């Protein structure tokens, strides 16, 4: 039971800190769930995030699997509610009063001021995932060259084409199967 309460506390706070979308809380989520609470290993965290890229809908629903690792289905439901409900409730009430601020120059200031913060957080998220997924010091250099190469190839392909990103994730899995095995 106390585990459920801990899960709710952690994910409800993350919900309200998710400025600029769910990926902005990735570095904090990784730090809290892996390094501080030891709920999942860094490899598990990265794999759970990656599974989220293969499911439709908001890709952060995968965080529910951290709850599943900690306390089964009850943990899964607890995380799902804790991660989505607080931000939705906030949005419900703030969006009611937001229209009243229409035309305020401060609205623009908030948006332009927050933009670089969100980018900094997203880069920190890349780093939090990449330090296990792209470069794993426990593995050989040729293994790491391949994982770095897969990530670089995905980034380049997505920049140059309009292919569905989920397909590049599947291709990454196929590359892992054939070349990393």
């Amino acid at each position, binding site marked *: 039971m106390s585990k459920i309460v801990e899960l709710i506390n952690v994910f409800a706070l993350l919900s309200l800190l998710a400025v600029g979308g769910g990926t902005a809380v990735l570095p904090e989520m990784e730090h809290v769930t892996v390094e501080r609470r030891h709920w999942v290993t860094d490899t598990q965290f990265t794999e759970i995030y990656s599974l989220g*890229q293969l499911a439709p809908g908001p890709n952060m629903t995968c965080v529910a699997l951290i709850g599943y690792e900690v306390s089964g289905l009850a943990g899964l439901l607890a995380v799902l509610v804790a991660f989505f409900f607080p931000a939705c409730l906030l949005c419900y009430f703030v969006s009611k009063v937001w*229209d009243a601020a229409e035309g305020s120059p401060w609205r623009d200031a908030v948006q332009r001021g927050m933009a670089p913060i969100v980018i900094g957080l997203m880069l920190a998220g890349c780093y939090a995932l990449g330090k296990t997924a792209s470069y794993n010091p426990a593995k050989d250099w040729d293994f790491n060259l391949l994982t770095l190469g897969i990530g670089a190839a995905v980034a380049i392909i997505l920049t140059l084409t309009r292919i569905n990103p989920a397909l590049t994730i599947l291709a990454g899995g196929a*590359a892992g199967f054939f070349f990393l095995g």
Partner: protein
Amino acid sequence: MSEAAPRVSLGKLFSVFALIGVTSFGGGIVAYLRRALVDKEKWLDEDGFMAALEISQTLPGLNSTNMSVIVGRRLRGAAGALAATLGMILPGAVIVTGLGFAYVALRHDPKVAVVLTGVAAAAVGLLLQVTLKIGWKQLIRPQDLIFVVVVFVLVGIFHVSLLVTLVVVAPLAIWMHRPRTEKEPA
């Protein structure tokens, strides 16, 4: 929004958002939302959609669920917000739960482990590409780049709590962009 909102049933709201939730593979959910809400159902016009998106992006939480809350509320109040948001989340949550069961059962299989390694390596590339695509303007402007670097170092390297980082850095960043053209009345 002042335009007369059409009367939409809660079931319809749920099903439209559930359809978006189940068909939007690979991120980019905003494009799916626009197609369904503006082009197909005509629940919002282009300006209404952009206004809702602007709120969704500024407030904490996922853009997709915030959009569901806003659109659901405008059409049917609190019940509408709940129906739309559940529609958005549930299909993906069910599928990700299924993937999760398979993951827990199979992850120690060495063949599955290398597939997951490849998937994770690709996911980093995807996240990096998305970050660069939406952030290139901030990365080439020195006064923004400073904030990008400071936040990256504080949160990513030194693991300063996100709450503390936001409380300290966000007011500074917003102050940098404070409105300057208008004169305050004396």
